[in-house]
């Protein structure tokens, strides 16, 4: 059929060279530098055994963030009654209930403020960024509304203003504006039972372990967020499996690790793309030279 397989393979190999290297790259552990929580990292500790589901944290959150209430759907304009985090809700109390076993637990959901967040890795211009104290903050000026953060976040936290014509991202920023004034985040400020408390991550972690040690029967012997997905700055204590509360077992591998490894491996110093470019150009020039030699031969 007149076409050599060698050329077919060569051309694919040339183009695929970069990608191949990327695929192999994850094996190189040194390409990804594991991010450790900062010494001054702050966070929250939520304890399902203390939460009474009063939801005052939800209204306090909207008030602290000047966010309109979500009174759509079944609420029919009466209550702030979202069924999930959304553009009007940065903080929600959910209820796990198993009618057969009678197991029941509230769970508070908001941004986990990951130690190495997927959203800040995803964000093109750094609209989502790790700010002071490791708080994951949002700068609308740099947000084009691409929603890649929503695709990336393993906890499904960032939400988009679907009802707006200029949709921005909405997510808990740990009330950084209040924290800066020395105040508590809205939810921690109002919680009547101390189910959610604010503080230095290391101290909260120590407190969580202290509680488990003091009352081992009361808790699942694990602090969710200590290592999950590379660690989060919001920590959870629970009396039921975390999976049941919608907190999946992601292992301790940071979500961005794969991508960062690949991107770093390939784009470090931009050597690989420039090299590939040079190679492509060189092949083309060689081909052109051969061509003109043959042309001259033909003409001559």
């Amino acid at each position, binding site marked *: 059929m007149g076409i050599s397989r060698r050329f077919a393979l060569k*051309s694919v190999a040339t*183009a695929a060279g*970069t990608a191949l290297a990327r695929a192999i790259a994850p094996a190189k552990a040194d390409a990804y530098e594991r991010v450790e929580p900062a010494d001054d990292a702050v966070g929250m500790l939520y304890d399902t055994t203390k939460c009474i589901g009063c939801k005052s944290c939800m209204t306090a959150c909207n008030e602290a963030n000047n966010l309109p209430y979500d009174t759509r759907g079944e609420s029919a304009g009466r209550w702030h009654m979202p069924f999930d985090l959304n553009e009007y809700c940065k903080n929600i109390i959910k209820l796990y209930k198993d009618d057969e076993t009678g197991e029941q637990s509230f769970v508070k959901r908001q941004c986990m403020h990951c130690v190495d967040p997927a959203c*800040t890795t995803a964000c093109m211009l750094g609209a989502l960024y790790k700010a002071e104290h490791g708080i994951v903050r949002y700068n609308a000026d740099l947000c084009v509304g*691409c929603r*890649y953060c929503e*695709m990336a976040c393993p906890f499904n936290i960032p939400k988009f203003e679907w009802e707006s014509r200029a949709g921005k991202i909405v997510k808990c920023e740990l009330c950084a504006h209040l924290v800066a004034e020395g105040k508590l985040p809205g939810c921690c400020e109002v919680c009547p039972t101390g189910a959610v408390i604010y503080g230095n991550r290391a101290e909260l972690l120590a407190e969580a372990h202290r509680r488990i040690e003091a009352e081992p029967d009361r808790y699942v012997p694990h602090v969710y967020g200590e290592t999950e997905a590379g660690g989060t700055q919001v920590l959870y204590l629970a009396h039921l499996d975390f999976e049941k509360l919608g907190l999946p077992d992601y292992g301790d591998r940071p*979500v961005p690790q794969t991508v960062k490894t690949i991107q770093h491996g390939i784009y470090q110093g931009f050597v690989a793309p420039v090299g590939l470019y040079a190679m492509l150009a060189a092949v*083309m020039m060689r081909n052109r030279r051969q061509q003109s030699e043959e042309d001259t031969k033909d003409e001559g």
Partner: protein
Amino acid sequence: MNYATGSRARAVGGPIFTKTVVALLLIAALAVVLIAVRFALGLGATTAMNDGYAWGLWIAFDVVTGTAFGCGGFAIALLVYIANRGQYHPLVRPALLTSALGYSIAGFSVLLDLGRPWLAWKIPFMFWHWNPHSVLLEVALCIMAYMLVLWVELSPAFLEKARDSGSATLRNFAERTLPILRKSMLWVIALGMLLPTMHQSSLGSLLLLSGPRLHPLWNTPLLPLLFLISCIAMGFGAVVLESTLSSRYFGRSAHRDMLASLGGWILPIVSLFLLIRVVDLVVRDQLGALLALDRYGTMAAVEIALFAASIVMMRSQSQRLRLGNLFRASMCLMAAGTLYRFNVYLLAFQPGEHWGYFPSLTELLITVGLVAGEVAAFIVLVRLFPILEAGSSTTKIDPSPAGIGSTSPTA
């Protein structure tokens, strides 16, 4: 070789507003109305996208699949300029036009999809804010740059028309610009191969960040490689479809031998893709999931079967020389590539069982309208500008590259 600046292509000519074009434009006009509605009411009111499936049809099809369809220019360029197969030169311009239109549609769809599209200018220009970890940034910059590169690669077609036109100004401009383009085209074309290599593979890397929420049948660090290989195969497939259809539409004889031997290039590429795909599944111990009769296993099986079917249909030169067969095989290939991309972006992506997504009517009709507009634009541009070269079913392809690219510029 005169790198796309020398061509035997001729404008097809003929009436512009034929029934087909008018019909296509009407569909596109509906999309324009719906686009206005989308901007007036916002994304929530017009699309089915939600906080679980934040990306929908416009990303999965218009951008991810659309640009893969638009890889014809990339694939043919690899063949002609890197593998030094000058005999395929007649396919370059139509492939470039398809690519340029496909990428332009993709870029436009992104603007529809963005929540705050008027800030999109910040992506290329606010370089001090660039996030080096962001795959999407790389994709965005590459696609923007590549769109530009494609139109520059295609510009000789417009300049030749200008040179032959009655206007002295246009003629002067073309005569001054064409030599400059001819000299620098090599570097542009090289860029035109580098950029798709980068962003087509990165379209696969994008979803690696959703790793924990990606179904294991598709969640592999080889995603970028698989996306890259499949996009080259799809690029060739797109060229076969586009070339066959346009020769039929304009009543010209098809480049039968050229397309058949092009099929010979698709074969090893798709085989390589399938090999990697299956070996990857075996290594990651996912064959069980593939054989499971749930929707994930089924869709993965259908996707792999379609790829395999295209290989079977293109297995020998005699099979490929039958245009009907080649056309069917290419359709299979395009369907397979499309399904693969949909699978990764919509099916494998699992924000949770409680979330669901099916495109809304508005989303669908806008996508359909954009594609209709693209086809109409192709027909019109091909009629007006020297893009297509008449093919001959009887001409045998000279296996040596000599003598094809050396034709002098048409005067």
